[in-house]
């Protein structure tokens, strides 16, 4: 009898221990440790304890700047800030672009965003903001008569706003354009960069004839391929076509979008991309360019840095690298100056401490922005910091982007994430011959109709 009682007791204790453990575990199982609360409760430390045992404010910062120079600079900024603010502990997580997107989605679904993280603004950021996962930093921007706000160029700041409230700030803004290898162009007998789509196709033909791979493309990652279709749509339809389709007055099956698909197939028929481009990643694309094995790539302002990082001698193609804007399409409704692109920014997670916001303020300070510009991987968004841009090509991009009559944010960022992903998938299918231009736009339209009700 005694043993029964004993067992019953053990059973009851075990059950009592496990059940609350289970129930409390269930909702919070995937959460990670959170930053310590602001140091309001800093109890007086014993006099003998060293200062380092004081409770520090932890700031979690996720960025995707994997290029050596850039990663080191971010680390340097964090170290500098921590040196002047000993109560702050900045913990950096560096993630590769695609890995970052997956990991962020998971922590977002668990409701625990990092304090500061990479963002491209637009539709994806809006989804997070709507779900209450981001911190509204509008009051910080407007404090002291909008001192912080005034440092930014307004267009770039607007990308990180939703219904007039800012949930993040930019640190880079530029545009997509065609990076080309001057030596290979010369070899193929192309004297000046093409200005129109027909001239561009002609250049591709000449490069093919000279036995050079005209274009490097990482269509396995999908978004690099989307750039081609989207830029064609910008040239053909301009501001009006996109805004109508987005506001549901028009549709993504409208003529300019279908026509963009047809033009892209016109290009694809010349077989301009390297072999196996459908499974290549953006890393492969940059490697091919950086090794001088393809003549062109359509990419944003960060391209030279990534090319260098992916080349064997870390120098890329050096002086041979040139840049020209996306060719205008004959008869298109878009203004030749219209720019397609975007930039990089940092969004602020809902649990961010005032210290985290102060650190972001430091990161986007003029001095830091100038230093960022100097390493030639980003185009500053803070007024006056463009002086730091040493690379003449990046200067051209910066000025082209800043005078563009219409600035189209990347489609996969401007649209809700589900649609962005359908756009990317459809363009890949278009290039693989699995969809016609009409079917691709219909797939996009179906998704838009569902998401933008």
């Amino acid at each position, binding site marked *: 009898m005694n043993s029964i009682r004993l067992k019953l007791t053990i059973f009851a204790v075990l059950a009592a221990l496990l059940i609350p453990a*289970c129930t409390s575990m269930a909702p919070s199982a995937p959460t990670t440790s959170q930053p310590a609360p602001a140091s309001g409760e800093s109890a007086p430390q014993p006099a003998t304890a060293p200062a380092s045992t004081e409770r520090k404010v932890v700031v979690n910062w996720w960025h995707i700047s994997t290029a050596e120079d850039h990663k080191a600079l971010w680390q340097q900024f964090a170290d500098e800030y921590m040196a002047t603010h000993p109560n702050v502990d900045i913990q950096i997580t560096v993630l590769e672009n695609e890995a970052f997107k997956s990991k962020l*989605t998971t922590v977002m679904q668990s409701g625990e965003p990092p304090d500061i993280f990479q963002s491209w603004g637009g539709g994806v950021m809006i989804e997070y903001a*709507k779900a209450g996962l981001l911190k509204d930093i509008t009051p910080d921007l407007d404090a002291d008569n909008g001192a912080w706000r005034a440092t930014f160029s307004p267009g770039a700041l607007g990308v990180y706003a939703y219904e007039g409230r800012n949930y993040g700030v930019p640190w880079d803004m530029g545009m997509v354009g065609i990076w080309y290898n001057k030596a290979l162009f010369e070899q193929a007998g192309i004297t000046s960069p093409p200005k129109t789509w027909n001239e561009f196709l002609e250049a591709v033909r000449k490069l093919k004839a000279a036995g050079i791979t005209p274009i490097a493309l990482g269509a396995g990652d999908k978004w690099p391929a989307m750039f081609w279709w989207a830029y064609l749509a910008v040239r053909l339809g301009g501001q009006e076509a996109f805004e109508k389709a987005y506001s549901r007055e028009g549709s993504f099956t409208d003529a300019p979008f279908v026509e963009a698909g047809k033009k892209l197939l016109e290009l694809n028929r010349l077989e301009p991309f390297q*072999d196996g481009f459908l499974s290549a990643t953006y890393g492969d694309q940059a490697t091919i360019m950086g090794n001088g094995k393809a003549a062109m790539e359509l990419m944003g302002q960060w391209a030279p840095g990534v090319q260098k990082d992916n080349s064997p001698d870390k120098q890329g193609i050096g002086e041979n690298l040139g840049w020209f804007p996306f060719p205008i399409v004959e008869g298109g409704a878009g203004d030749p100056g219209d720019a397609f692109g975007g930039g990089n920014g940092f969004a602020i997670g809902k649990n961010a401490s005032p210290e985290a916001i102060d650190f972001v303020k430091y990161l986007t300070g003029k001095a830091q922005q100038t230093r960022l510009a100097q390493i030639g991987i980003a185009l500053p968004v803070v007024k006056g910091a463009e002086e730091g841009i040493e690379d003449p090509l990046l200067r051209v991009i910066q000025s082209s982007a800043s005078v563009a009559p219409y600035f189209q944010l990347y489609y996969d960022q401007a649209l809700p994430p*589900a649609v962005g992903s359908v756009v990317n998938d459809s363009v*890949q299918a278009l290039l693989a011959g699995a969809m016609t231009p009409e079917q691709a736009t219909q797939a996009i339209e179906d998704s838009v109709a569902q998401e933008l009700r």
Partner: protein
Amino acid sequence: MESLTRHQVNRQSLSTQRLSTALTAWMFILPALALFVVFVVYPMIQSVYYSLFNWKGFGSLEDYVGFGNYQRILNDAAFLRTLSNGIALVVLSLMLQLPLSLALALIVGRDLPGRRYFRLVLFMPYVFSEVIAAIMWVGLFNPDPDRGLFNAILVAMGLQPQTWLGNPQQVLGCIFAVLTWKYFGFHMLLYMAGLQNIPREVEEAALIDGASGWQMLFFVTLPLLWGAIRTSVYLSILGALQQFGIIWVMTKGGPVNASDVMSTYMYRYSFVRFQLGYGSAVAIVMLVISLFFSIIYLRFVREQEYA
């Protein structure tokens, strides 16, 4: 009167003993059961619930769609493609991977000189993590002959380089080759264990009766290996149906669904397209398919064990 009381007492002590045994059993089961409920049953029920909503994965569950997600799944050509890809992988595994594993087990399981060395080498791929293996193979399949080994070999032999993973017609074959390379060692191990359980006497008796090598294989070894083969087929089919890591790292299911399977499709909807409700419905469909297969298989194949 006295005997009756004793009988009652006996009965009572018998039932307390039973209770005691049951309690002991429950005590041992409880921790594992709790983990199972928290990490398997609870998420499953949660997924069923999520699958009834149009939900992005964060924010509140508002948009109830009933079985709408399931309807969409079954009408989606891309999902049907994942089914046919899955079946192709299963069929290829059964036709090629398992016979290969069996043949190797028969060779290295017996008296081959240096068999330990071969066993080690053949089993090694199974020990690698899926991600490491996949990244390594992506490198080997690189379409640039200067960077990818396979195309370098083709070019050196004067043949046309292939685009491998970039070619919708080749990609599933490439994936299957990697899956075979990764998992044949595991199946080989199963067969080797089975072979060791076959008593030498049976084979000796067959030899004395004048059985040829092939006769021995088909009438003695294989029938006695039936248990191992059954397990291996079962694990191989379930493995192929649930494969995710290698495919996601190598191709993300692309180009254009050409190597998409149910799990990559589910992942894409849940974590790339932010449609966790739909993704949950896919997970449930996947669960039902796997469960259905398991029950049928256990019922019709396993049953023979006791027949």
